C-alpha cells in the first residue's frame, strides 16, 4: 500500500508486532480513551490518568508534551521512568479534559512514531502512588512529637531530623499526601516536593 511507484526501492518490510490486545476496539477503530471518567471536573472535564509507553530516546518527552501543549492542556501530574525493558520508558500523565478532546489527544499520541502504547486508566483497577518529601519547622520537643504522631498515623517516615527541622517521606495516593499536607499546614512547612503519580494495574492485567 502506498508504495506509489517506489518499487525500484524494494519492498519495505516493517517488523512491527500486531496491535496490542489491550487496545479497546469500537466500530473497528481502537478507542484508546474510554468514555467514562471517574473524577468529575468542571463541566465535561474529567481527570484522565494515562500511561504512555515510549521508546527510550532523546526528544520523545518533548514530542509527547507538545501534543498536550498545542491543544492547551495542562498536565496535572507527570512521571517519567525506566521500565522492566531498558529500551522502553513509561510516561504517566494526569490531565483534565472533556472526552472528545481527550480522544483526539490519544489518537494524536498514537501517531507519534516513538510512542508504542497509550493506555487510559479511567476504568482500570489501579494501584496508584505518589511520593512527597515535606520539610517542616520543628524547633521544640512538643512540635517534634506532634509531627511524629502525624507521621505514624499516615505511615509516613521521618527521614531527616535536625534541631530546627524535620523531614517526612509520605507515600500513597494523592489524597493521602493532600491530607498530610493539610495537617502539617498548622506548623510551618519550609519546603515540599511531590512526584507525579505512578500507576500499575492490579493482578495479571498489563498496564
Amino acid at each position, binding site marked *: 500500500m502506498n508504495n*506509489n*511507484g*517506489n518499487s525500484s526501492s524494494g519492498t*519495505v518490510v*516493517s517488523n*512491527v508486532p500486531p*496491535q496490542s490486545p489491550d487496545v479497546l476496539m469500537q466500530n473497528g477503530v481502537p478507542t484508546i480513551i474510554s468514555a467514562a471518567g471517574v473524577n468529575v471536573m468542571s463541566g465535561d472535564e474529567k481527570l484522565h490518568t494515562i500511561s504512555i509507553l515510549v521508546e527510550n530516546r532523546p*526528544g520523545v518527552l518533548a514530542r509527547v508534551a507538545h501534543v498536550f501543549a498545542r491543544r492547551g492542556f495542562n498536565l496535572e501530574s507527570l512521571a517519567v521512568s525506566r521500565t522492566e525493558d531498558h529500551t522502553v520508558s513509561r510516561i504517566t500523565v494526569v490531565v483534565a479534559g472533556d472526552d472528545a478532546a481527550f480522544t483526539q489527544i490519544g*489518537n494524536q499520541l498514537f501517531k507519534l512514531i516513538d510512542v508504542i502504547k497509550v493506555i487510559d486508566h479511567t476504568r482500570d483497577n489501579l494501584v496508584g502512588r505518589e511520593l512527597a518529601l515535606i520539610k517542616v519547622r520543628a524547633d521544640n520537643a512538643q512540635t517534634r512529637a506532634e509531627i511524629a504522631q502525624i507521621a505514624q498515623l499516615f505511615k509516613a517516615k521521618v527521614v531527616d531530623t535536625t534541631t530546627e527541622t524535620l523531614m517526612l517521606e509520605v507515600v500513597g495516593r494523592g489524597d493521602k499526601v493532600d491530607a498530610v499536607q493539610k495537617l502539617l499546614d498548622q506548623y510551618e512547612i519550609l519546603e515540599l516536593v511531590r512526584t507525579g503519580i505512578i500507576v500499575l494495574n492490579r493482578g495479571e492485567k498489563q498496564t
Partner: protein
Amino acid sequence: MDGAEILLECLKREGVDAFFGISGGAILPIYDALGKQQDIWSILTRHEQGAGHMAEGYARATGRVGTCIGTSGPGATNLVTAITDAYMDSTPTVFFSGQVATPNIGKDAFQECDMYGITMPIVKHSYLLKRTADIPRVIKEAYHIARSGRPGPVLVDIPKDVSEGIFGGEFVYPETVNLRGYNPETPAADEQIKAAAKLIAEAKQPVLYVGNGINAADAADELLAFAEWINCPVTTTLLGRGAFPGGHALALDMLGMHGTAYANWAIHESDLIIALGVRFDDRVTGNPKAWAPNAKVIHVDIDRAELGKIRFAQVPIWGDVKTVIKQLQGATSPKNHAEWNERLDKWKADAPLTYEKTGHLKPQFILEELQKATDGEAIMTTDVGQHQMWAAQYYHPKRTRSFITSGGLGTMGYGYPAAIGAKVGCIMGHRPDVDVWCITGDGSFQMNIQELATGVIYDIPVKVAVLNNSSLGMVRQWQKLFYSKRWSGIDLTKCPDFEKIAQAYSATGVTITHEDEVADAIREAQKNPGTVVLNFLTDKEEDVFPMIPGGKTVHDLVIDGSGRKVRVGGGFQDEAPALEGAQAALSTATSGESVSEWNDDLKSGEVKI
C-alpha cells in the same frame, strides 16, 4: 567511505534521483559527495523554500518521496514553510538540514539553530543524526515513514562531523525497518465494510466526498469504477481535484467555500456522505454542525485520528482507501440513483459556474481557454488566492496527481517551484511527460520568482500563467465584502513588469491584455520548448463566486457579485444581502475600472511605479 557518500548510497537505494537544495558550510561534505557521483540529479535552487516546494511538487506529481536539503541555520529555517506545507497536505518528503558539528551543538555556534526542535510540531517524524554508523538505518526509516500510512515530511538533521565521519565496517543497507510504535497499515474490519455496504444499499441520495487521499493512494481508477457501480455523484475537495475525472456525468466538481452551488446543495440534501480520504476541513464544512444535516457518514481514512475528528461518522473505517473502495465494491450491488442524479443535473444546468462578460480580460475566461487548449491533460500547479480558486473551478484535470496546490497551509509562492518539481518528475520518467502549467497571481509569483533561474538554467520548462490583477486579490475581495471596501495592504502597484522579468531570466515573456489574444498566447506557449511567462492583465474587480463565508452554511451561499443569498436548489432568498456591506460596496464598485487605463499605460510605456 565517509558519511556523505554513505548517505548518497542510501538515497540511491531509496530510488532518489532528484535532489533539490542549496549548499552551505555545514553540508559541504554532502555537496562534495554529490559532485563525485552521476546517479542523482542535484538541482541548485535560489532559495531553500523553493527547494522544499520543488520536492513537494515532485512528490505530488509522482507519488515518490521528494528530497531536498538546506544548510544549517538560515538554510534550515528557510525550509520550515515547505515542511509545514508538506505536513498539512500529507506530502511524502524527506528534508535534510545541515547542522554544526556535534561538539558545537547547543553552544550558539555560527549558523547553528535547533532545527530538530523548531520542526517538532510540523513533521511526521524527525532525526538528529549523532553517529555516522546510524546513517543507513535512519535513512531507511525516514523514507519508510515519509511514504507509508498517511504520508508526510520527515526531517533528518545531519551534523557536519557525522557527514564527514568515516563509516567503519561493511556497508549494508537494511532491508527492513523495526519501528514497533509505528503501525500505519491495518486491514479494515469486515463488520465495518458490511455496515457501510448496508448504508450504501439504503441510501437514496448519496454523495461521494473525496480528497487527496485518493491521489495519495493512487486510487482514482478504483474510485471511478465504484462511483459508476453505485451510480453515485462525486464531489472533490481542492486537493482532491483530479481524483475523479473532470467532465464526467457524475462529477459535481469542487465543494466548499468556493465550490459549485450544485456540489454544496447536493451535500446539503444528501442522506449519505461517503467520505474517502478527506478530513472535513473548515473550508469545506464551514459550520460543521449544520453541514449535511440529513446525512449519515461513512468515513474512510488511513489516519485514524481523522475519523470523527470534525464530524461524527456512523461508520468509521480505518484503512487504505484503495483497498477499502475495492472491498466496498465487492460488498455492494450496482445501484441506480436516476431521480437523484436528474435533480443534480438540473441544478448543474440552472446554477453553473459563470461570470459576467464585460469585455475586460476575465481570469475565468483564461482558465476556460487553458482547459480547451490542454483538454485537462496537463499538470496544473497553483499558488494561493483568487487564481487558485478559479483554477480549481474552471480547470478539470482528467487524471490523478494533476492538480497540485497548497491547500492546508495555503502557501503563496508554492506554485512555481512545485511546477518545477512536477516537471522534474516527468523528466525523470515517473509519469508521462505532459505540459506543466503554473497558474499564479502577481502576489504569489513574486514570493518565489527567483526560481525562474532554476527553471531556465536546468531547462525544466514550465508554462506560467500570471493572472495579474495588480493586487492581493483574495484579500481585496474580503475587504470589498466584509471590510467596507477599505483597501489596505493589497495594492501591488503594477510592479514589476513580468514580461521583462521573464526576459531578464532568459525565459519568454508575453503580456496579454485582451480576450482575443488569449488562445493564441496559450498555443504559442505550448509550442515553446522553454520556460514561458504569460502575463495576463486581468480585471481586478473580478471576484470569486460562489462563496459561502467562513463558518457559515449553505444557506449563506452567494452565487454572484450581487451579494444576494440563494436558496438551496436555486432562486434568490427574499431577505437582505448575505454579506454585510456587500451590496453597498458592489454598487459603488465599477467593474474593471482601472484595467483599461492600465492597459493603455502599459502600451504607451508609461507605467508609473
